[in-house]
């Protein structure tokens, strides 16, 4: 198993959590995490893995920090 620090933001927090250390099997992808959390892929705006943009196919490793945002903007 690997431990991943999952952070959720904006509307994705509603009914879920702000941040949690979660355990996943080896070779888990970002898409697996998103699916497990029940987040529709189409609503995802930004995926940051250890502060770098990634796509859903990226495989996670132990101690990764994954931030998941809906499409947001401002300025």
């Amino acid at each position, binding site marked *: 198993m690997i431990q991943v620090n999952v*952070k959720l*933001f*904006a*509307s994705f*927090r509603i009914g879920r959590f*702000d941040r949690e250390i979660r355990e996943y099997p080896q070779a888990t992808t970002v898409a697996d995490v998103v699916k497990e959390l029940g987040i529709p892929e189409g*609503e995802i*705006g*930004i995926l*940051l893995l250890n*502060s*770098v*943009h990634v796509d859903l196919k990226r495989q996670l490793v132990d101690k990764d920090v994954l*931030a998941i*945002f*809906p*499409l*947001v*903007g*401002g*300025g």
Partner: protein
Amino acid sequence: MDKILRINMGASGGPSQAVEKAGEYTALGGRATTSMIVAKEVPPDCHPLGAENKLVIAPGMLSGTAAAMSGRISVGCKSPLTGGIKESNAGGQAAQVMARLGYAAIILEGKPATDDLYKIHIDKDKVTISVDNSLKLMDNYPLVEKLREEYGDKVAYMTIGSAGERKMAAASIACSDPELRPSRHCGRGGVGAVMGAKQVKAIIFDDNGCKNRQPKDPEKYKAANRAYVEGIRKHAVSGEGLPAYGTNILTNVLNEAGGYPTNNFKTGFFEGGTKISGEAQAELEIKRGGLATHGCHRGCVIQCSGIYNDKDGKFLTKQPEYETVWSHGGHCGIDDLDTIAMLDFLDDNIGVDTIEMGVAVGVAMDGGVIEFGDCEGAIRLVRDEVGKGTPLGRILGGGAELTGKAFAVERVPVVKGQALPAYDPRTVQGIGVTYATSTMGADHTAGYAVATNILKVGGDVDPLKPEGQVDLSRNLQIATTAIDATGMCLFIAFPILDQPETFDALLDLLGSFYGIEMTGDDVVALGKKVLTLEREFNKKAGFGAEDDRLPRFFKTEPLAPHNLTFAVKDEELDELYNWS
């Protein structure tokens, strides 16, 4: 909008007024109008606070019509902060009301020979310019309260606080919101100091008896507006994120991306970021009986603002924007929302740009004036020094560059004398190109590459690499210049970048209003024309390629957590204005 009001504040015997035909400016607006008039009429080498500078105020092409989101007002002049051309725009009610009064522009020129302070009241029948020295050194909130006793609530106010009267280079012009709070500011570049130099304390727009401006093709216009609103509402950013969390939703985004400039640009991640995030702010606003969703002008369908109450549930300030939360927050090592909200109120009240003010305070912290993270100290500097015009306050109110010089700080984040906003160019390389090359000095709104680099709206360009950033920034700067002419809020860029049908709806709005065919190429041509004029003005004012650069520390000091420097080469920056 077929007329221009020209007021010569320096006329012998007191200010004179003349109404001219709008001529070539009839079908223009906003930044296009202000920059064209400034480029044509203001000597580029004049002193910004002298009689030769002019303050030009212009509503957008679609302001005062039924078009949604059309409430931006532009103010132009030679900037006392940058020494170059300036266009600073704001929301609030002024654009709609001024446009319904039929003015394409108001030009304030000259300078009074006496030290009298003036107010200007404009209604459909006449323009009244009167001396009112009882307003001297009043700040914006009490000032508008006092003016309301005389002019009432069915008007729009544009005012300066004490900072504008003191001609501080960070001084702003406040525009009142629908509830008559002076909370929407033409903030950047010291436009408030130029109004102060003209000795105009307040402009009161009264559109009683005026109607909305009418389109040439009402049916097409109505249909276009419907499609436009639909497009704005269905996009996740303008339809959900901005209404619910405001612009401060970006604190967590930039912090997680490692691009949140912290403690005067020393690192890209702020430990206290979550405490001052948009999520935390919206929750607190609702808990205290404020609002997390509020529009700055009637006709806004995004409603990105809010109402921030203090812990006793009393109005403290409008919802501080992301840029403000950053400049007074992470940039200064401050992670307390109440402190930031108080500073936002003080800035609005005194009448200073929240970005310039916050950055100046952070630079002062770096110079040892107070410690990073000192909440009380930051409030004291703004309230008791800037707000009272002490020598220290005048240094801070002169902006980040002046503050850096005064306190011998090496790390001074400015371009062309204007403070950098809330995105570190080492992590968001595209916005670094905009900061370096914009005619306005460092200005994120001039070409918001953050959208494409970080938010993945309107495309995807890797924020950490220099490749593609100049092309990206160029295209965005051209498009933004055109949007700044329309009177549209820049946040329409999110849906129009992603949804071609919403962009078409905007073109149809413009086309059907003026009875012309408007294409994407026309928009690009307008953007290029205005940018070219602005750049020519800056060249004549003494700017060269060496001014289109970021401060050197961005090239030499790597920023954690990515440990990168700004890698776009100088030669590439020089290509920005090479368009065919």
